[in-house]
């Protein structure tokens, strides 16, 4: 009898949103509460890994056709880019700036370059995590 994964797949379909939301939440809440780019990235990466476990390499790759090495690379570029960015403004390397911006609809928001930096961290973590799992998974 073939394995029927219907229960698992159905539950994961529902649960994955909780995980993704949590990941995004952790990513943004890091500055004032536990979390941050790294842990957010890990959770998001775990969600993707969960998909890979529940389904399989081919299926997931069809639905998410990313080269995760490049996702990771993009993350590093983002993180280092914000760092280098401060040089262009003649501030010490890695200087973070923040400010309150009035954005239409969303209202006044506190934005900081740390967020971009953290986004880079998160992307790297996601990319690396998935790259590692996939590379090993594909090595049969």
């Amino acid at each position, binding site marked *: *009898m073939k*394995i029927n994964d219907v*229960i*698992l797949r159905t*539950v994961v379909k*529902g*649960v994955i949103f*909780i995980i993704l939301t*949590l990941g995004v939440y952790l990513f943004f809440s890091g500055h004032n509460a536990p979390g941050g780019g790294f842990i957010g990235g890990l959770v998001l990466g775990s969600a993707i890994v969960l998909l890979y476990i529940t389904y399989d390499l081919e299926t997931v790759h069809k639905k998410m056709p990313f080269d995760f090495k490049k996702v990771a690379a993009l993350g590093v570029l983002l993180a280092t880019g914000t760092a280098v960015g401060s040089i262009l403004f003649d501030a010490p390397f890695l200087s973070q700036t923040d400010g309150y911006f009035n954005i239409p609809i969303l209202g006044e928001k506190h934005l900081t370059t740390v967020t971009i930096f953290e986004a880079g961290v998160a992307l790297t973590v996601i990319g690396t995590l998935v790259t590692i799992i996939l590379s090993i998974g594909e090595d049969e």
Partner: protein
Amino acid sequence: MLNVKEILEWIAVLSVLLASIISMISAFGMIRLPDVYTRSHAATKSSTMAVLACLSGAFIYFWVHDGYVSVRLILGIVFVFITAPVSGHLVTRAAYRARVPLAEGSGDDALKPVLFGDEQTSPTITADNVDKHE
């Protein structure tokens, strides 16, 4: 005098205590029960119930004590609630497919003919060679 707040806090604390006791018993069951399938009952049911009781207790406590409604706790409760049975299902399925035998003295086995029907002898796999065949 106990006011409502105090009572609720006590309910929270006691539900935590209850949870811990159930959990302990459930863990004891994990030791005592004869095979992985029966143990999975203890795990998916008692333990899940314990953790839900405990989290509910915590939820109530934070709500009453700090006026803090923790969405995260609710999410946690929901999550555990949904996933606990799935875990039980998957593990027992895996166990069976990995030919972990039922405990001695078990009754009917409706699955055996379907999965291993073509095999003459019943799967006589001991715990040891399950480990080996990892």
